[in-house]
């Protein structure tokens, strides 16, 4: 064997290797999506999300997947409710699992950390549930999109209702972290614009999941407001509702509760669910559009359980991802970013659009009043509010969002 043959052999081998490495692998290769949520930190809110997401994956794959027959495969992880953990998981998903994008999360600080990561590393992140306004505005960036109606949108829906009640003396109670602060600030901003002479007579800021409900209720009563805007949730809300009603805090007052109509919030309260509160939420039992009925029935058939708000968000998350991949015709990040801008898709609650201007989807929320029926909290007199109607003007958004 001469040197020449050795070289030729080597060159041939190298060429073959390169060809094998670069050739498009066979068409049936799955599209991997990285998804994470706080499954152990706040399971009551996140496990339904996962169930909704999985249902959508099954539906999409049963219809033949995306990009002409490629199945969707979800790599699912628990972010532990910790931003640093979430960033680490995202790094792992992109570098080890080779996912096309990451999605999910509930806590705003987790979402903001991932948004910052997405910007730094130029990877796509679809924030499903985090509500922080900054995610698409002050800290918005090219690589981050958000599905669920933001704090501002939901607070604006409630402020509109608040203006109609005629109450002037308002008190607020919200968990003392970014979500609570934002929810109060947005509510005040919109309500003050609608009713310039409102007064805010008390602001209570219990630490998240460490509420001293009796003391908070008494402090609110002492300020003697006409109406109270509540942002507490989970076990905090349960304690607040109980101590408040024991102390007759809610009697004769207009009560508003952000997200208070979501089954995740309402169901643990059982027959002690507050009555007559104006809330945003998800009355899954009463929505009778054909799209939603199909979703609800499929969900109930699959899991033997009813859908929560998280289930809907999880379902819509995967629908959005599949739609974006189809529109992009690829799983490449830059193509997906462009596809997400202005992406329109049909969901169980109607058509939504991912706005090109700030990457916020126009998915809306249901606004209604709480009532107790058959020992259970429900929403009555509700209507669906399209998210597109509760966003600031484009000029305001442009002023908020850093230029790319």
């Amino acid at each position, binding site marked *: 064997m001469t040197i020449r043959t050795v070289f030729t052999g080597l060159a041939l081998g190298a060429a073959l290797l390169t060809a094998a490495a670069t050739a498009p692998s066979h068409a049936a290769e799955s599209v991997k999506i990285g998804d994470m949520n706080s499954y*152990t930190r706040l*399971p*009551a809110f996140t*496990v339904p999300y996962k169930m909704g997401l999985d249902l959508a994956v099954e539906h999409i794959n049963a219809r033949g997947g995306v990009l002409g027959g490629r199945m969707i495969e979800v790599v699912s*992880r*628990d972010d*532990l409710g*910790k*931003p*640093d953990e979430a*960033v*680490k998981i995202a*790094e*792992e998903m992109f*570098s*080890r699992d080779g996912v096309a994008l990451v999605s999910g999360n509930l*806590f*705003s*600080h987790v979402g*903001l*950390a991932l948004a*910052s*990561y997405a*910007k*730094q590393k130029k990877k796509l992140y679809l924030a499903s549930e985090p509500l922080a306004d*900054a995610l698409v505005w002050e*800290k918005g960036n090219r690589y981050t999109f958000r599905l669920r109606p933001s704090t501002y949108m939901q607070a604006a829906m409630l402020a509109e209702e608040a203006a109609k009640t005629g109450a002037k003396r308002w008190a607020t109670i919200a968990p*003392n*972290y*970014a979500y609570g*602060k934002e929810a109060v600030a947005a509510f005040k901003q919109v309500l003050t614009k609608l009713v310039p002479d409102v007064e805010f007579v008390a*602001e*209570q*800021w*219990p*630490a*998240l*999941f*460490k509420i*001293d*409900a*009796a*003391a*908070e209720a*008494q*402090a609110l009563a*002492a300020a003697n407001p006409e109406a109270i805007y509540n942002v507490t949730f*989970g*076990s905090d809300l*349960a*304690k607040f509702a*109980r*101590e408040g009603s*024991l*102390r*007759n805090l809610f009697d004769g007052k207009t009560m508003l509760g952000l997200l208070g109509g979501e089954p995740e919030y309402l*169901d*643990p*309260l059982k027959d*002690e669910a507050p009555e007559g509160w104006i809330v945003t939420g998800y009355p899954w039992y009463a929505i009778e559009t054909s799209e939603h009925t199909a979703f609800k029935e499929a969900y109930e058939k699959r899991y033997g359980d009813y859908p929560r708000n998280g289930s809907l968000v999880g379902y819509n998350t995967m629908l959005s991802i599949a739609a974006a991949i189809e529109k992009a015709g690829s799983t490449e990040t830059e193509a997906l970013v462009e596809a997400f801008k202005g992406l329109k898709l049909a969901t169980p609650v109607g058509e939504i659009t991912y706005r090109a201007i700030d990457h916020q989807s126009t998915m809306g929320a249901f606004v209604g009043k709480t009532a107790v029926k058959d020992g259970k909290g429900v929403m009555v007199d509700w209507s669906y509010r399209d998210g597109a109607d509760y966003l600031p003007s484009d000029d305001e958004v442009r002023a908020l969002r850093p230029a790319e």
Partner: protein
Amino acid sequence: MGLLVAQLLAGLANAAALFLVASGLSLIFGVTRIVNFAHGSLYMLGAYCGYTALQYLTGPLGFWAAALAAAVAVGLFGLLVECLILRRLYKAPELFQLVATFGVVLVVQDLTLMLWGAEDLLGPRAPGLDRAVMLFGQPVPEYDLALIAVAPLVLLGLWLLMTKTRAGILIRAATQDREMVGALGINQSLLFSGVFFLGAALAGLGGALQLPKGGADLTLDLGILAPAFVVVVIGGMGSIGGAFVAAVLISVVNVFGVLYLPESTLVLMYVVMAVVLLVRPHGLFGRAELQAGPPAAGIPDRPLAPLGPRWRTAALALIGLLAVLPLIGSDFALVLATDIVVLALFAASLHFMLSLGGLISFGHAALFGGGAYAAALAVTYAETPMELALLLAPLAGGWLAFAIGWFCLRLTGVYFAMLTLAFAQLLWSLAFQWTEVTGGDDGLIGIWPAAWASDGTVYYYLTIVLGGGAILMLRHLAHSPFGYALRAARDSEKRARVSGIRVDRVRLAAMVVSGTMAGLAGGLFVFSKGSVFPSALEIARSFDALIMVFLGGVDALGGPLVGAAALTLLQDWLSRLESWRLLLGLAVIAIVLLAPTGIAGFAGRLLRRREAS
């Protein structure tokens, strides 16, 4: 006036559950000297057991019967934990007990999730006590009044038990001098088991009795832990009367905090604790420990020796491997390796003061998070370049360690540990609630490395050089006269003093060194993650450091490295599994019981045995 009375009553009602938990904790500590980190888990179990019992027992009598049933059930569970795990650890160093009880916390978390599910359970109202009565024109719930009565009743019961019964006299005797009690022929293990049962039952009762004011959820355990510790420390460890006074004090301070300082409710408690401990270092009713006891972290069986040639080769091989990792490993391997080096430095900094100085800190996260926040704040508000911020982080860690050490080093043993925890919690609550500056829960984000180091590989090398260099420096210090003086002060303070070692200064210097290194680890951490959150300062972070030191082996100088690698890889691997907390908890408990010298210590012993044979 009416409002103040109503707030006061609400505070007193809150004090009841807190007192029940804290008195159990104090009792257990007083007799067994075990700092039971699983006490919050017992409280949570009490809430869940009470909830289940209430499904079957109804009516006013049924409610109280259910609470008692929950207390007994939790007491039995506590007994089980004592018999299976803690009984084997009474002679072991505090660190081992601490790590074991933390393992129990993890196990109980997952078991509760499996048994009762994830959904928050709202406690039913107490039958017969479900209305409010008017006092001074303010509605006050009847159940609050019942709770206000329960706490003094329990206190009275405990007082009678302690003063009027033989068991109580034995408990008090054991609190004073447990070896003497043993020498007098008292069955110690029965006594310890009995106390553990009682303490656990009190926590369970507390959990069940708070049901009508709240409910059962999976955050109860760690939620009550910090306040219960604060109460025990303020009251004086081992003092039940002290726990009562402190529970009332903390609860009342909290409700008035809600009224007047609604945004800083978390900080108040720790401020009160720091102030009390400054005036009375052993708490309001506590006494200085009578028995000196064994050195807190165990005595190394051999003097420290420089590495033998074989180990030197191994160390060089490791460094070589780290140097070529970017060529052979995936991107994610680099991420993991960066994490391991940062954590190894964090663990090594704790190991330095804990193993060499005998100073067990429960609040080492304060120094790590302090460094991290210093760097992040400098970048956020002064646009400091990364190089300067990385210099600032260790400086901040060192200064913090100096300040904390100046306060805490007046105490020893568990008291020292608890006070460091209090300072760490103080910093944590500042980071958590001073949202204008620290961003609160949202943290500070967008703190990425300078352009030249933004590539993962470059930052990895930077971490290796800085982190590895710092670890080598710690190692060098351990072999220096300073390291020897530190160990002398640990093993025999008196002899060290007589030999002319200024023990206090040496310890303070050790803390500053430790803080500097922890701060550097924090700085490296921030730039590798691009962000910092209050979680960098929380209790769990301090636990991570302790567990890493423990996993690696307290007495092995290379322990922190091994521990950091083990914890990172274990977490990375386990967190993919459904019940990873259960598995991690069981693994931790198993290591405590089976290989108490840690991984490095275990390997070292094996090697030595082979060399000897």
